[in-house]
């Protein structure tokens, strides 16, 4: 067997620099509002993201009501419908998923898991949240300006985005672009923090190859985001200029409803390239943290090390790198040079290989495990089901010629919801059930959790699995109503109504989940500091919830990787990362190799 990272060591290098004094809050305001503590910022980020996510959820209900029962709801006209789908998409992808995974989970877990007292730049970290909050408020404001929010689709393709045939093409689109620019500014501040903290803030003994995969996933995703978001930033600023100053970055000569506009010479395709240069890595910005976290959930609850840790790390790096050269697979039928299709189809299908390996390693971790079917484990299993399903439909859409009939149909909607909506959200739920005891000191209610799990998993699967087949039929996406056609049978409308009913049910079960979050805060069972008997550092804090500075007087020293579960000969079926080898009783191993270097 290859030399793996599970070998523990006696020797840990002495600290090279003294610990720096941590910022201490002096008042309630600096402790809980303008806080510089990453854990408080994490909760602020998460609550804001969940709040705006609820708006996104309600918007999905409204759009599904229109699709399922086209003639019943007179208050949903075409203009509103397009505004609903646009805001739903943008909110869910950027303001919920990105913010929750990086701003929420990243802030909470990076310092705790790498053994740091806080982020490296706490003040900048605080600014990151407040700018994010302003971005969200600007976004919400766009609902209240004249003409309403933009209805250009979340992809915001020019020229229509800023022309009068599109809802919200005045105030709505301006606020949308300003909000995105603000979001990116705020994210950059946080993102730099996450990367630098992983690189510079690790405690003694915590080598990169001993980091839990949760940290690896968030780390790589943050690097992607730092490199990808600038493309969107540039696009948003140029489009603002086109809208407000009359420039023509993305605007060719246009005749709108018989009238010559004063634009000319710009390129609509340029915006699409900029958008997807951001947009495709964005998929992995959401997916990689989920990949990392789910690896840890599976490992802890199957009481087994993650299978092929090093392969898992390199797969994350490979997927991250490849994700920058696949963007134009969103543009196979955009009218770009058709020869691009050969290159982008090839890179896109290559990315399936490291991704498939991750899936294999997740299920191989279950093999010969000791599987505890806790709520986090259930969500992890459901993640694998939905991710495998959404991943293989990606092989349809990535294979350029297969994409031609399927693009812009409901197949695409079903695919990306399954792979980057449902699958990452299941991981988010799983991790909330997993870490809530550490964050609050109480367990979430099991009964409500089971209800939430089964309704969400089976309901979401029942929504999106059959939706693919509407796409095969040729039902286009972004249609206010399909109306009379010669190729869509009436039964498709029945299926659509079924999907709408399921959407309402699954949405309702999220209310149960939110109630559980609040109820358990006061009435939940008191949690053990390490209820799942996990190895990683966040479970080894002296206080639960962890106090200011995370680790009490002395930072932990790390002696081993994060996955010493069911090690033969050990007393317990887990060995915390900071447990010195001398304390692992019944240790049969020969003297560790690296000790010789002393």
């Amino acid at each position, binding site marked *: 067997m290859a030399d793996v990272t599970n070998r523990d060591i006696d020797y840990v290098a002495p600290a090279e620099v003294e610990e720096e004094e941590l910022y201490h809050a002096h008042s309630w305001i600096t402790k809980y509002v303008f806080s510089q503590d990453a854990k408080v910022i994490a909760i602020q980020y998460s609550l804001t993201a969940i709040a705006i996510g609820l708006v996104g959820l309600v918007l999905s209900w409204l759009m599904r009501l229109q699709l399922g029962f086209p003639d019943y709801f007179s208050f949903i006209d075409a203009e509103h419908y397009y505004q609903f789908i646009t805001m739903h998409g943008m909110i869910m992808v950027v303001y919920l998923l990105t913010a929750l995974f990086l701003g929420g989970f990243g802030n909470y877990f990076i310092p705790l898991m790498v053994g740091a007292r806080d982020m490296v730049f706490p003040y900048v970290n605080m600014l990151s949240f407040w700018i994010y909050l302003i971005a969200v408020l600007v976004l919400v404001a766009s609902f209240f300006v004249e003409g309403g929010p933009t209805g250009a689709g979340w992809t915001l393709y020019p020229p229509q985005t800023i022309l009068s045939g599109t809802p919200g093409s005045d105030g709505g689109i301006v606020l949308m672009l300003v909000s995105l620019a603000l979001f990116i500014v705020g994210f950059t501040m946080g993102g730099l923090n996450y990367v630098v903290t992983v690189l510079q803030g690790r405690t003694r003994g915590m080598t990169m190859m001993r980091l839990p995969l949760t940290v690896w996933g968030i780390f790589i995703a943050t690097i992607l985001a730092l490199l990808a978001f600038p493309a969107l930033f540039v696009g948003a600023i140029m489009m603002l200029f086109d809208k407000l100053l009359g420039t023509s970055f993305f605007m060719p000569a246009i*005749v709108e409803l018989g009238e010559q506009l004063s634009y000319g010479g710009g390129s609509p395709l340029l915006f699409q390239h900029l958008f997807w240069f951001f947009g495709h890595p964005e998929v992995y910005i959401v997916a990689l943290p989920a990949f990392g976290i789910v690896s840890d959930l599976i490992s802890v609850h199957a009481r087994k090390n993650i299978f092929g840790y090093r392969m898992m790390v390199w797969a994350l790096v490979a997927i991250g790198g490849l994700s920058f050269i696949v963007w134009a697979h969103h543009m196979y039928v955009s009218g770009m040079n058709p020869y691009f299709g050969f290159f982008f189809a090839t890179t896109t299908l290559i990315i399936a290989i490291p991704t498939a390996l991750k899936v294999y390693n997740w299920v191989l971790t279950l093999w010969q495990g000791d599987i505890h079917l806790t709520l986090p484990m259930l969500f992890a299993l459901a993640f694998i089901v939905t991710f495998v399903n959404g991943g293989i439909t990606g*092989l349809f859409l990535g294979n350029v010629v297969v994409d031609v009939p399927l693009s812009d149909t409901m197949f695409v909607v079903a695919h990306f919801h399954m792979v980057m909506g449902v699958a990452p959200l299941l991981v988010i739920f799983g991790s909330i059930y997993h870490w809530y005891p550490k964050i609050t000191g109480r367990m979430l209610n099991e009964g409500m959790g089971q209800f939430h799990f089964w309704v969400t998993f089976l309901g979401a699967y029942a929504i999106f699995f059959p939706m693919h087949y509407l796409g095969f039929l040729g039902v286009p996406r972004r249609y206010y109503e399909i109306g009379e056609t010669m*190729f869509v049978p009436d039964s498709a409308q029945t299926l659509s109504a079924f999907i709408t009913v399921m959407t309402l049910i699954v949405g309702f079960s999220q209310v149960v989940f939110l109630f559980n979050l609040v109820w358990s805060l006061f009435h939940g069972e008191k949690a053990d500091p390490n209820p799942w008997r996990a190895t990683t550092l966040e479970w080894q804090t002296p206080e639960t919830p962890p106090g200011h500075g995370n680790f009490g007087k002395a930072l932990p020293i790390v002696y081993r990787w994060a996955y010493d579960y069911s090690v033969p000969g050990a007393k317990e079926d887990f060995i915390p990362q900071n447990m010195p080898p001398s304390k692992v009783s019944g240790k049969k191993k020969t003297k560790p190799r690296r000790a010789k270097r002393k």
Partner: protein
Amino acid sequence: MIVAFVLLLVVIGSVGFHLISPWWWTPIASNWGYIDDTINLTFWITGFVFVAVLTFMAYCVFRFRHTKGHKAHYEPESAKLEIWLSVLTSLGVIAMLTPGLFVWYQFITVPDGADEFEVLGQQWMWSYRYPGKDGRLGKTDPRNVTADNPFGIDTADPAGQDDVLVQGEDLHLPLDRPVKFLLRSLDVLHDFYVPQFRAKMDMIPGMITYFWITPTRTGTFDILCAELCGVGHHAMRGIVVVEEESAYKDWLAQQPTFAQSLAKANAGTRRVSTLNAGGSVR
């Protein structure tokens, strides 16, 4: 136990749904049967992986669920297994990608002698232009667009005078002749999409894009816009009629040329100005 059973049920249910689903491709009406074949091949390969991975997972959940005294096996990694799995996955990917790229090459390579015609998209209607007797389409520029010249044809280009213009009517195509769709938009992005043709392509203002097909059966099909183009996107419909070549030629002969429609418009303008003159006298 229940969990493993439900997981298995999800696999069986998915495969079952696929087999009995009444929602499937519309019967094809073009030469792109190869696209359908590539999709079916992709279904077989990915379907196998889907069933294999999830059944294995369900088995693990059943077989290795926690019981008292049970302990997990300790095995960090297996380079051999991982290499094998990488190789098998790569083979699967190659098996899907290779035919896909071959068919893509055919899709973007228009056969010599294909008929050309133009589809013009604007919010929210379709118009069509055929090259007329000289077999060439006249030059266009959106700056030329006026009420009398809705296609923006260059009046100085002789090739444009005999172009046949079809507005507010169905599109007609001859059976069994390869045809290249030249796609143009005046305002925003559109996408010319006929589900039975299996082909679609965006239309971009300032550019001419294309795709080609050979219609393989007669019939009447829906044209949809497949790229969000504003509040009337879902209502941007049209109809294409595929018919025998003789019927197609008869239909085409009845459509006005650019020169004819210009003359008619001019005559109309003269009449209007006469009326106006009369009005001012009165």
